């Protein structure tokens, strides 16, 4: 079972997740970023569900493992949809929503097919393996998509502060998890990672709650002028 620090971080994360939805509702941004808010809402509800299953069956129980991994796959799909929503916001003036949605569906289908191809050799627990593999692969797809989106924001000189804050925090979140995952593989016996991963889980809702609470949807950043160097 997690210790008191683990429970505190988990509780704090759940509070921050629901505070994102509350801030979005208070600032009338719930519908504008519907998938982001649904992701946070589901994340909060599933945190409560995970706590219930953990309290009933324990950390090492099969019930908790199944509930954790299946709920994580659902949340990863929601996070993917939230990321596609951010793409739609960035490209909203270019009238290419249809193609963004088409590419997103094709990418999701391709990731699912790839994940199926990886686990099709296993005879038992194939659905569980598929869910786990899909969640991991979709996570890396989200990581790449976030960097592409950030490059697009720079290229299109997007200046909406709230949108930039949402995308940047998502990019930092994905990058932190990928870096921690790589370090965890290199140094598997460090106990440090037990707490650092849940802390990262708190930082994303904190950044999003700040974006909804403090930044106006119409606020714009002053873009830097390009320095032209004469050669």
């Amino acid at each position, binding site marked *: 079972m997690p210790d008191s620090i683990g429970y505190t971080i988990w509780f704090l994360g759940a509070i921050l997740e629901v505070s994102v939805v509350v801030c979005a509702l208070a600032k009338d941004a719930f519908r504008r970023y519907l998938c982001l808010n649904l992701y946070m809402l589901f994340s909060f509800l599933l945190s409560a569900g995970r706590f219930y299953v953990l309290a009933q069956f324990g950390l090492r129980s099969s019930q908790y493992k199944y509930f954790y991994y299946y709920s994580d796959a659902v949340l990863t799909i929601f*996070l993917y949809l939230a990321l596609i929503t951010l793409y739609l916001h960035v490209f909203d003036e270019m009238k290419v929503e249809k193609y963004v949605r088409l590419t997103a569906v094709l990418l999701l289908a391709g990731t699912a097919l790839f994940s199926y191809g990886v686990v099709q050799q296993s005879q038992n627990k194939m659905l569980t393996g598929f869910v786990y593999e899909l969640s991991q692969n979709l996570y890396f797809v989200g990581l*790449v998509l976030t960097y592409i989106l950030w490059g697009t924001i720079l290229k299109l000189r997007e200046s909406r502060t709230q949108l930039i804050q949402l995308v940047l925090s998502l990019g930092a979140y994905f990058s932190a998890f*990928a870096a921690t995952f790589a370090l965890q593989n290199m140094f598997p016996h460090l106990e440090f990672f037990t707490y650092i991963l849940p802390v*990262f889980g708190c930082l994303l809702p904190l950044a999003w709650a700040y974006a909804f609470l403090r930044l106006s949807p119409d606020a714009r950043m002053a873009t830097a002028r390009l320095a032209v160097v004469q050669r």
Partner: protein
Amino acid sequence: MSRKLTSSLFLAMLVLAGAMSLKTVVAAQNNGAVMMANGSAPVPPPNGRNGSAPVPPPNAWNGSAPVPPPNAR
């Protein structure tokens, strides 16, 4: 197939290939650690992780004889 559908498919496959390459690089020394990135709930421990003793290597590497294929019976 229309040109825009083809380009959408090409983009999707390009992103997928990039993501899987990144996954391969990040998980190059994978020792069974899982990466679950949603929420701050404690990750369930993987099977066979009792205690902190070093995990033995997966293959018995005694000597330099070639390892038989796994399905050779």
